[in-house]
């Protein structure tokens, strides 16, 4: 929201540091007031004078106020107005750019934006832009970016809340705005540019200026980037801990670069596998590349989202793959789920939107047996017999912290009816459980 809370954009200040500052400030006020009391000599308490509040306390209070309230407070007196403009209050900001015709949300006031650029652009460190689906909003974001010349950003997020409007902005306009930030910041740590027209040359600029500091890069669905472009990032940015991209950018070279000795342990790799046209062919990644990743970063999370037609899964799950979080956004076949059970020993979370009309009994039981880390499972339009489901839950036991099964998934059989199954399952889970329901009217 507009209050620029630093927690939201990822600042990692310890709460204790704040507390100490606060305590110091309080001490100072008390001292000031007792000094005044002595000076008065009469023993009468001085009038509560708000103007005596030291800046540190004001800052602390202002940090708790939403932006609008802070703005009102700043109109009260010069002192408070100065406090309003203290650099510490302008480290984080989220620009909300919406057009009334395309969004229900309110936008950051243009005057406020002007003020920020004028007075605070060199204070900004953690910045995000939330835009709606209109091109004007995305262009407005680019305009602001172009003006952040004195900024030394640590975090930048370009977030489209509906359709990806950054893709509608003329590419050159977008790139030049973005490179302003890349060149001037020199200490970018976190960058979120999903669904934007970023390209290989601009990534080179990013790397040239921020290779020492870059820790997080999210760039899913950036169609103008090539595998070579992202490889450049992995090669140079050895501190990269989190990366999100589309499958077509993934290569054996990339994985090897991420597992090189110079590179820190990767924490989180997210890959979206999206089908552009039916019957699309996807390249394969060698098992050895994945093995290298696991050796180098034994605890990293591999999150994969699949949006493919059923017959496009050929290249996948034929070898062991260290997936931890697996999402099938469309229908996936029994056969593929069988392969998942065989080849995904590190699986933690599995979500299947749809399967088909044959029960997934064997596949689920195999997954329970072999995916010993599985703690969350979600099944949408699938079928499982009640007995097999109970067996599955029994085998997983209490490690299943999230079990989200649509009611229609469960097929009653000779052993269990729908009304009985949730008791059985609850028993094995150690907590009350029942399936997800949809209204039937």
């Amino acid at each position, binding site marked *: 929201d507009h209050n620029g809370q630093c927690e939201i954009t*990822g600042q990692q200040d310890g709460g204790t540091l704040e507390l100490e500052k606060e305590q110091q400030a309080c001490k100072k006020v008390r001292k000031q007031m007792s000094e005044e009391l002595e000076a008065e000599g009469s023993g009468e308490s001085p009038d509560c004078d708000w103007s005596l509040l030291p800046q540190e306390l004001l800052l602390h209070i202002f940090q708790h106020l939403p932006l609008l309230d802070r703005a009102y407070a700043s109109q009260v007196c010069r002192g408070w107005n100065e406090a309003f403009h203290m650099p510490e209050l302008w480290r984080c900001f989220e620009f909300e750019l919406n057009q009334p015709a395309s969004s*229900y949300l309110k936008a950051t006031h243009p005057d406020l934006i002007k003020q920020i650029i004028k007075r605070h652009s060199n204070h900004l460190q953690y910045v995000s832009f939330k835009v709606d689906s209109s091109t004007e909003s995305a262009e407005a974001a680019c305009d602001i970016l172009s003006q952040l010349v004195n900024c030394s950003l640590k975090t930048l997020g370009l977030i489209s809340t509906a359709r990806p409007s950054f893709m509608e902005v003329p590419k050159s306009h977008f790139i030049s705005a973005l490179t302003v930030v890349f060149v001037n910041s020199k200490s970018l740590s976190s960058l979120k540019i999903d669904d934007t027209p970023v390209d290989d040359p601009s990534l080179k600029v990013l790397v040239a200026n921020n290779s020492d500091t870059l820790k997080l890069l999210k760039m899913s669905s950036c169609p103008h980037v090539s595998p070579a472009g992202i490889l450049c990032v992995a090669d140079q940015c050895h501190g990269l801990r989190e990366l999100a991209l589309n499958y077509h950018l993934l290569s054996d070279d990339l994985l090897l670069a991420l597992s090189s000795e110079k590179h820190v342990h990767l924490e989180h790799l997210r890959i979206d596998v999206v089908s552009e046209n039916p019957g699309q062919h996807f390249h394969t990644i060698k098992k050895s590349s994945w093995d290298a990743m696991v050796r180098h970063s034994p605890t990293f999370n591999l999150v994969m989202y699949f949006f493919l037609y059923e017959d496009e899964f050929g290249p996948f799950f034929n070898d062991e793959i260290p997936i931890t979080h697996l999402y099938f956004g469309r229908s996936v076949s029994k056969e593929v789920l069988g392969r998942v059970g065989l080849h995904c020993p590190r699986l933690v979370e599995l979500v299947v939107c749809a399967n088909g009309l044959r029960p997934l009994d064997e596949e689920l039981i195999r997954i329970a047996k072999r995916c010993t880390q599985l703690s*969350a499972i*979600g099944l949408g339009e699938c079928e499982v017999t009640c007995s097999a489901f109970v067996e599955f839950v029994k085998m997983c036991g209490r490690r299943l912290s999230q079990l*989200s099964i649509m009611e229609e998934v469960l097929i009653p059989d000779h052993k269990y009816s729908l009304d009985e199954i949730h008791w059985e399952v609850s028993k094995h889970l150690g907590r009350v459980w029942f399936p997800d329901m949809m*209204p*039937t009217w």
Partner: protein
Amino acid sequence: NPNPRPRSCNHAPNVGKVFEVSAAVLVSPPSVDFCSTLISMVVNSVHWFRKGLRLHDNPALQEALNGADTVRCVYILDPWFAGAANVGINRWRFLLEALEDLDSSLKKLNSRLFVVRGQPTDVFPRLFKEWNVTRLTLEYDPEPYGKERDGAIIKMAQEFGVETAVRNSHTLYNLDRIIEMNNNSPPLTFKRFQTIVSRLELPRRPLAPITQQQMNRCPTQIPDNHDQLYSIPSLEELGFRTEGLPPAVWRGGESEALERLSRHLDKKVWVASTRVKTCSLYASPTGLSPYLRFGCLSCRVLYYNLREIYMKLCKRSTPPLSLYGQLLWREFFYTAATNNPNFDRMEGNPICVQIPWDQNPEALAKWAEGRTGFPWIDAIMTQLRQEGWIHHRARHAVACFLTRGDLWISWESGMKVFEELLLDADWSVNAGSWMWLSCSAFFQQFFHCYCPVGFGRRTDPSGDYIRRYIPILKDYPNRYIYEPWNAPESLQKAANCVVGVHYPKPMINHAEGSRLNIERMKQVYQQLSHYRGLSKKPHQSMNIMHQNVWLDQKWSDVASC
């Protein structure tokens, strides 16, 4: 009765005035007994039909007849408002047929239905005076708008010295009781709701229909010009064009409802014993939902009939709550909505997640008019517009497509289209279901997305549903009928339907759309989670399934049951 009127009014008019004055002085209305010892008074009842369009199980109507001298049944209708309201032709037709049915049933009892044109606040003062009304009865309307409207009318009635009687018969239970039993807030999970309901006493038994004898004791004075003053309007009068209008698939009215009920129960006999997973997308001759909405069928009559059949067949003492499925969902949403005037919108609605939906009137129109280019979606919206009813799986499909699945348009827009076209769209049930299906409320997981191709194909592999409602596609083979754009051009030409020429191209790439939307939902829920203190680093949540942001409340609620 604070305003007793002497039996013979042709005495000195001052007598009446004296009573009026003295009545005005009274602080609280005297008991009926007290009044009757003073004077014998005439009771002229008016029963105000709104929902509850039936003569069976109608406690308010019974109250109108109870000890009355005359009774008149009214329905108030503003034809001018009809044109402006978001109500389509099928819904009006259903209502008018229900009114015709009431009128004809009342005729058999030597009475009539009085359809009064205007707004209640204008109509009632006139009627109170003209008919010397002393008692007004109405079925309790639990919806927030209804409560407000009725509050104003009841107040007005009191000012006119008209006694009012309100009786609950549109819902199975007293909704306030359910709320009370849930720590004074409506249950927001269906399971929780079921648990509370299972602790309540059974719903009150339905009352018998009003009888000829009852009516004979309080005859209706039918004026000679009744058909000129109080007739039921026609569709044309309401501003609809009816040339070429196909006959109604769902006939309105209590008689039709009761016939369907007996057919429905016949079917239930064998369904109760075998669990049949049928999904007929077509209008069923035993479907009851529109009749429940308009009150042509009493929900309690349905409830007790189901209960009886189950107990007869299964010889078990308590039927499972799942037997009443549809009825309890209806009750659930009514309960959730009754104290929430903002239930039908996102902004200002405390139970609704604030989601940054897109505003896109063009896309919305394509969806509403069945021009999305996805035959499954288009067929469903076509059936909805033509007939006024679609199966609940079909509702899930189109609701998901409009909101969190593909178009990312607000559920409020979808709700309004349903309100216009769907016969059984109660305000509460419609709004609640849309919030549910768009994952805006009631703690839904958003991961499962209905594919506009796959879900349709799995629901109806034969493709006949598509062929019936999108006849231009009828010559497509099953393999391509759900995704005609993927058919080779030669096939499209052979089927006399080229995509992009005779049938629209798909308006969105579903894979890309659903990928984007799942990201959007994640963003929303991660921020929520964060605000709730459930996650430290919101941008890093790798889990696809969201921790229920009200997790502690949901589970502890249930665990305590």
